């Protein structure tokens, strides 16, 4: 896999609900093997971007290409089958399923039990607490634990690419640091990551490249180090 190839390309995307356009002419690219981040405050269209890529909110115009395959408007399960995984905003664990069941859902497209077992072990290695409490219902866990579960579930599919939507949402700084560390380690194992975040500092610390989204448009892009000093980023949050 060459590092320069684009694993995911979003070209001139327009998307929205009802009548209003939430995304306006958004083009981004995530290079294979890298962590690409999308920064922006609430309401800037980050989540809509994720939904459009996944086919949950079909784009009005534009194109999404994943690993050379045009996935624009493809049903979600087909997109996932191509090797994408998503850690959705707000964790979205299944509250009435156990931790283990949640994890197994992450590997839903994987039929081989041996592989699933191996991945379970891997996830338990990363988050030992998930291994200790397999049969606990996810809904009874604390926010931080649910975040772990959500990440673990995303890894269970053995994805080529991981879409992560606001992993820091509502978490204490300690958890945020821990989760970002996990994301970095996962990426080091060769998984391409598209990280959508509001938490700019920590995100840029682990990302390679980034885009800044504001009111549905890309207002800045560049390498992480360049963005770190970019005034546009601060402006996107604090006006």
């Amino acid at each position, binding site marked *: 896999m060459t590092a320069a190839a684009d694993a995911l390309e979003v070209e001139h995307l327009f998307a929205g609900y009802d009548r209003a356009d939430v995304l306006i002419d958004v083009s981004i690219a995530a290079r294979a093997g890298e962590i690409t981040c999308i920064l922006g405050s609430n309401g800037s269209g980050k989540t809509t971007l994720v939904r459009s890529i*996944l086919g*949950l909110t079909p784009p009005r115009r534009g194109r999404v290409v994943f690993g050379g395959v045009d996935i624009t408007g493809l*049903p*979600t*399960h087909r997109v*996932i*089958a191509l090797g994408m995984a*998503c850690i*959705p905003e707000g964790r*979205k664990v*299944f*509250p*009435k*399923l156990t931790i283990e*069941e949640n994890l*197994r*859902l*992450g590997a*839903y*497209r994987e039929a081989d039990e041996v592989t699933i077992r191996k991945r379970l072990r891997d996830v338990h290695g990363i988050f030992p607490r998930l291994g200790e409490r397999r049969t606990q219902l996810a809904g009874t866990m604390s926010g931080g634990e649910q975040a772990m579960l959500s990440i673990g*579930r995303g890894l269970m*599919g053995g994805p080529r690419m991981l879409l992560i939507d606001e992993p820091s949402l509502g978490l204490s700084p300690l958890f945020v640091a821990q989760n970002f560390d996990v994301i970095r380690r996962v990426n080091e194992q060769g998984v391409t990551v598209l990280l959508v975040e509001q938490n700019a500092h920590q995100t840029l610390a682990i990302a390679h490249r980034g885009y800044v989204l504001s009111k549905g448009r890309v207002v800045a892009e560049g390498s992480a180090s360049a963005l770190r000093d970019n005034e546009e980023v601060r402006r996107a949050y604090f006006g």
Partner: protein
Amino acid sequence: MDAGVLAQYVFNGVMLGVIYAMVAVGFTLFFGVLDVIQFAHGDVVMAGAFVGLATYVALHVLGVAAPAVVVFAVACAAGLGMALVGAVIARWLILPLRAAPAFNTLLVTLMLGSILRELVRLFYPNGSNPQPFPRLLPSASVNLGHFTLRLDTTILIIAGLVMIVAVNLVVRRTRLGLAIRAVAQDSETARVMGIDFERVVLVTFAIGSALAGFAGVVYGLYYNEVNFDIGLLLGVIGFSAAVVGGLGSIYGAILGGFLFAALQTVGSVALPVSSAYNNVFAFAVVIVLMTWKPTGLIAERASERV
């Protein structure tokens, strides 16, 4: 009350509860994945019984007589036939109406129920009349005072329970069941996990309807008689059981089924007034229960639809 008589009430009540629970589980499964009520479900039970009956007649003509084979074939035909019917209903009548008001699904399935009923009545030979359902199970019995323990009823109770447990196991323990539960809790996130939503819906309707088909056969084997209009009341009771138990919960449906059987039994034998009031009693208790627990005994979540 004599212990034997009491045991007899309980035994009969359990048989009845098993049938109701089998019907109620379907309602609750459908509601789980799609938030709809399939009001033709009772008539699917009836259709299952008739498919079983037709299979029996066909085997009889073909000269297959071994009871075990016949029972197996009859149950399979009913189960598979209704699975197909369920999937067809979901695909052509329920999914297309997802965007429409929930009321429409209701009216369409109600009408579908009467269509199924009329089809059987008109096109099954002599369909307006009660049909004899063959006695395929050994009818040995033991008398213990006032209590008669029949082998065939025992087999049916066990078979019914096994079916319910099997469906529950499918839902609780298999990959498919995991997908069903995931869709029931959060269909969008389930899709993000790579689950094909439509397929899961169709399969769920197939499973619930297959269970209804089996319920039809159990019904036939227990009462040895089926009629084209048994589905109406079975549907209402199954729906009531599922709702009283708490829509979306399999355990709730089972609880509701047995509760309804218990209410009817108590209503028939323990009330100071005529036993004809048993349904008045049962439904009055249902209203009180709903007032007390507005989202069912095992509340999964509130239904905002309809």
